[in-house]
């Protein structure tokens, strides 16, 4: 069992009479990338802001490396790095001064550490330029450098790939994975790109209307929905045989069934016996997108 770095219990937020967050519980382990998904207005942003101490929860507790965010704010924050929404830095300062600014707010962060994080995000050549001359990708990198200054145990990234080009997105993804795998950081990522989450995260929490509907590893979430695609001839006979075992759907010339590791050889043997030629058997994982729509019930709400 790996160490728990971030634990959230019974988190609630009420604004006026409206309960926006209705009780959220989850835990982050060391070296894990955790995805946070939900449609607009589901309470994603509010939850993240409660995690980083910008919003005070009405009830519930948040612990970062064992320190309560409300009781031990400064200690908890020492183990947290974050980018909330866009990496907002001071455009009138250069990159290095921006890092210096935030380094001064942390205990025991000296200039060699600043140089280290600059190298880590590969901004050496432009670090003495004013931030207002940076591209969005560079700002994003500077934002991450800033979040890395205190060697956090927990990194909270709100939309980390927002506004990046495809190459940048890939780079970012690899970078985040590297942080989790090599540095043992826990990373909490929220993204509106579901494919991103799918590629990046170990576990996903799906949140809707202020509640977490489901938390699981990406694989297990997906495998329950895994499909097997058959291309057989003759089609009619194949349909007849397969439907005797399980539910089928037909998509043009293909037959689609659920994937069941133990049953599939049997179905295949039955087809062979009946003289149906099996040209192709193809396992297919559904997109998280489909899954998400299934789980949240579509609900008309757009996906953030």
């Amino acid at each position: 069992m790996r160490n728990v770095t971030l634990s959230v219990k019974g988190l609630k937020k009420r604004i006026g009479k409206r309960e926006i967050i209705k009780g959220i519980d989850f835990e982050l382990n060391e070296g894990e990338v955790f995805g946070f998904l939900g449609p607009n207005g589901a309470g994603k942003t509010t939850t993240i802001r409660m995690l980083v101490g910008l919003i005070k929860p009405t009830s519930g507790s948040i612990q970062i490396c064992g320190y309560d965010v409300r009781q031990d704010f400064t200690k908890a924050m020492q183990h947290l790095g974050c980018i909330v929404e866009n990496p907002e830095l001071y455009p009138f300062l250069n990159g290095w001064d921006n890092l210096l600014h935030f380094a001064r707010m942390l205990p025991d962060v000296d200039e060699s550490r600043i140089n280290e994080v600059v190298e880590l995000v590969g901004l050496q050549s432009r670090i003495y330029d004013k931030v207002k001359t940076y591209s969005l990708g560079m700002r994003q990198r500077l934002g991450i450098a800033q979040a890395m200054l205190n060697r956090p145990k927990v990194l909270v990234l709100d939309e980390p790939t927002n506004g990046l080009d495809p190459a940048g997105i890939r780079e970012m993804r690899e970078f985040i994975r590297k942080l989790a795998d090599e540095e043992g950081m826990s990373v909490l990522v929220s993204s509106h790109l579901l494919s991103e989450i799918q590629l990046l995260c170990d576990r996903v929490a799906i949140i809707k209307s202020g509640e977490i509907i489901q938390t699981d590893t990406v694989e297990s979430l997906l495998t329950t929905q895994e499909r097997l695609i058959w291309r057989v001839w003759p089609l009619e006979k194949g349909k007849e045989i397969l439907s005797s075992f399980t539910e089928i759907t037909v998509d043009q010339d293909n037959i689609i069934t659920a994937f069941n590791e133990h049953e599939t050889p049997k179905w295949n043997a039955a087809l062979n016996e009946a003289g149906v030629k099996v040209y192709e058997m193809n396992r297919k994982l559904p997109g998280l997108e489909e899954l998400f729509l299934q789980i949240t019930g579509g609900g008309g709400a757009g996906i953030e």
Partner: protein
Amino acid sequence: MNNLIQNEMMKLLAKKRLVIIGIIVGVLVLMFTYAQYKQVKEQQEKLGTDDWRAALQQQIIDTQNRLGSNRMLDEWREQLQVSLKQQQYYLDHDINPSEPGATTFTRMFLENAIDLFIPLLVMIVASDMVSFENSQGTIKLLLTRPVNRWKILMSKYVTLLLSVSIIVAMTALLSYFLSGLVFGYHGWEAPVITGFGLNGSDVDVSQVRIVEQWRFLLMDMGLVWLVAVVVGTLSFMLSVLVRSTPAGMGIMLAALISGAILNNMVSSWESAKYFFMVNLKLTTYVSGTAPPIEGMTLLSSVITLLVWWALALIVSFTVFTRRDVY
């Protein structure tokens, strides 16, 4: 804390606000210097002499003639009578109330700038102090550092106090050095009369005494600084409460201008003396001009300002440390 103040100072300097303020002050001082120079020249031409006594005598005569007009508000008449008596007192004791020179110019400039110009300059810095972090979005980074919120606000407030000090010092130095180009850098030792007691239109001269101008100037600067700090703190509070800089500025500007207007017409509305903006002209007590509302004294004004100051600080800190940031 020192680190935090260094941070705020770094941002303040990088924003170059102080440079802009310096330029504004410089341009204004040059304009006033030129205007003053023109005025002096014209007066000399009219009188045919540069003798200040003759000029002052003529001012007294002019004031007397204005007092002779019966279409004058009682309140103005009272103020004119007070200044008339003071002018006469200066003349009788052979003291030039406006000894030419950069020192006098600086004193006059500060005395006239105390209720509007200096507060405006301070506002440029103060109203932006917190709200720019909001509009820039950097407040989110600032408040997720392992530093308590009150410390962050305190570092900002201390930086504000420091920049207010710089602004007041800069205004004084610029007006001294720029006006000195025209009027010469003298007048430090010139005598200034202080301690006029006012009682309606009566001027009590029993406690009058002479102060060297440099002392008087320093006292003026202390009072200007207090006003600047109080106005700065109020703008600071607005900067915390109203998250957009222009809105905060607008509110403060409205208050200051209404104060300038109220000063001319509140004499009958006595409770107006609890407004901070009516109490800004602290230097008038020292130089002995009639306050806008009868019964106001230096002490009452200073206390009123300090109460506003304390309330503004309490509100700022309470709101800032408790507020949710969206």
